[in-house]
């Protein structure tokens, strides 16, 4: 049963140093508020999984939260490289990061296998690619009926999955819509689940066959309005593409990055504090 609590408490209760954590959201509904809270609470030695480790993981990695990364595409969408991710892989700053690289189809299937209680997933993939040479977690099996050779990848089963969604009701049932990504699978694959939501309502007013996670599959639901900023929440606010563009210059330099994290994340109390500080410095009317 979902506890409806503050994000600070949810992270403190459910995420420990050394945990295997997935923060998912496929350019939509990225749980930035939860990412900041992990940085603020100085979580260390996390293994982070995410199909698309964009700015949220650049921040976590640059802030020294992670020892390992499982991913399939690491970039700043529409802008370029993730400088903190590259610096960690290429130069071990601020600490070495071991990276295990897959393809999108692989990780999507690996979350499905995790959600489905299977130890592995089967997919048509990787024949002729070099990825299996550098990733021992990619293997091949034979179809027992046709003798076809297919790829097999281990299920992803995070200790904690964190996602952001549009709405929850007071029982902690969560509704999301629009670009769904792998959030439902990542949540169902995890041992513990934290969901931040734009708002908590009396009634979800969900349409038939909507994408819902029932409250009894979730450990903590936290109301964090704007919690996906600078990504977007369909029906609530648009993506702040300027933030993504500006991130390139911030993340390119270690000191500029560290100052940014200090000022906007570590020196603020919570995500609302971050937004106030950010809006002040960037001339946005409150």
């Amino acid at each position, binding site marked *: 049963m979902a506890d409806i609590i503050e994000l600070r408490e949810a992270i403190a209760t459910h995420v420990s140093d050394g945990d295997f954590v997935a923060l998912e959201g*496929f*350019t*939509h509904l990225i749980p930035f508020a939860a990412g900041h809270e992990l940085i603020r609470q100085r979580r260390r030695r996390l293994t982070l999984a995410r*199909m*698309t480790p964009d700015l949220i993981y650049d921040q976590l990695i640059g802030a020294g939260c992670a020892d390992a990364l499982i991913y*399939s*595409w*690491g*970039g700043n*969408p*529409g802008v370029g*490289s993730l400088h903190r991710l*590259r610096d960690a*892989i*290429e130069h071990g700053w601020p600490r070495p990061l071991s990276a295990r*690289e*897959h*393809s*999108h*189809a692989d990780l*999507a*299937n690996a*979350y*499905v296998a995790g959600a489905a209680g299977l130890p592995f997933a089967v*997919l*048509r*993939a990787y*024949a*002729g*690619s*070099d*990825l299996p040479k*550098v990733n021992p977690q990619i293997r091949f099996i034979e179809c027992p009926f046709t003798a076809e050779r297919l790829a097999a990848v281990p299920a992803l089963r995070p200790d904690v999955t964190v996602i952001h969604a549009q709405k929850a009701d007071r029982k902690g049932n969560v509704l999301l819509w*629009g*670009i*769904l*990504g*792998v959030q*439902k*699978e990542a949540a169902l694959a995890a041992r513990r689940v934290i969901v931040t939501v734009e708002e908590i309502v009396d009634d979800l007013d969900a349409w038939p066959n909507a994408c819902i996670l029932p409250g009894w599959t979730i450990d903590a639901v936290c109301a964090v309005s704007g919690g996906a900023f*600078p990504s*977007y929440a*369909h029906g609530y606010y*648009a*993506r*702040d*593409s*300027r*933030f*993504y*563009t*500006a991130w390139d210059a911030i993340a390119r330099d270690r000191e*500029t990055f560290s*100052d*940014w994290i200090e*000022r*906007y994340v570590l020196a603020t109390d919570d995500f609302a504090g971050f937004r106030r500080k*950010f809006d002040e*410095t*960037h001339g946005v009317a409150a």
Partner: protein
Amino acid sequence: MSGSDFSTEEIMTVAAARRLPDRAVCFVGIGLPSAAANLARLTHAPNAVLIYESGPIGTRPRVLPLSIGDGELAETADMVVATPEIFRYWLQGGRVDVGFLGTAQIDRFANLNTTVIGDYVAPKVRLPGAGGAPEIAACAREVLVIVKQSARSFVEKLDFVTSVGHGEGGDHRQRLRLPGRGPTAVITDLCVMEPDAHSRELTVVSLHPGVSREQVECATGWPPRFAADLGITPAPSSRELDTLRALQARSAAAHGAQPQAGAA
């Protein structure tokens, strides 16, 4: 008929767009592929079905998406499914006619590297990685590659094979039992290449207007083959150019040109 003046990127996008048949189901990568696929949809291929890996199927974005999961893609789609379903039922299920890919490196058999420059363990540059490309390259009925040409990107030997084009050439794809036919064209800012019918080695079939063989040779990390009947890529029509420019102007306006979230 043709626009009098156009950039190399414009003719690349137009030449790529022309390769997308109407009614084709097209799996679209972000960036140049997305611009080309949407230009096709807005010109000769109004019934092309565009699929993005984030979940939208049959999407008709009014502006080019900045990210693979922009809200615009969801709002204008016939339907939006979860990402696992996109890869399982739609791509692997064999429903994609054309995969539209970019790349960082490409070799003479149109194999693609988007993983690493230099050694994998001690990389010179870590690139974004595989994303959806390996399975798009494997499963789409055919693949179109759109990439700016230079000796750094068109290399004798890839540092890493992320996505298989024609492997080692010849019937290598069939031997790997890859479902799709692989790359049928590589469209660059200089020329259009197609794999040779037998060896599957990329062969320049047309040069863009004003481009010389020598320019292509200088921008290719191996001695490129040229087709016996080497042609000139038809220049963009004014409709193509106008449509592309309007699309890009709309997109720039929508996304905002200037950075805001700068360092304090």
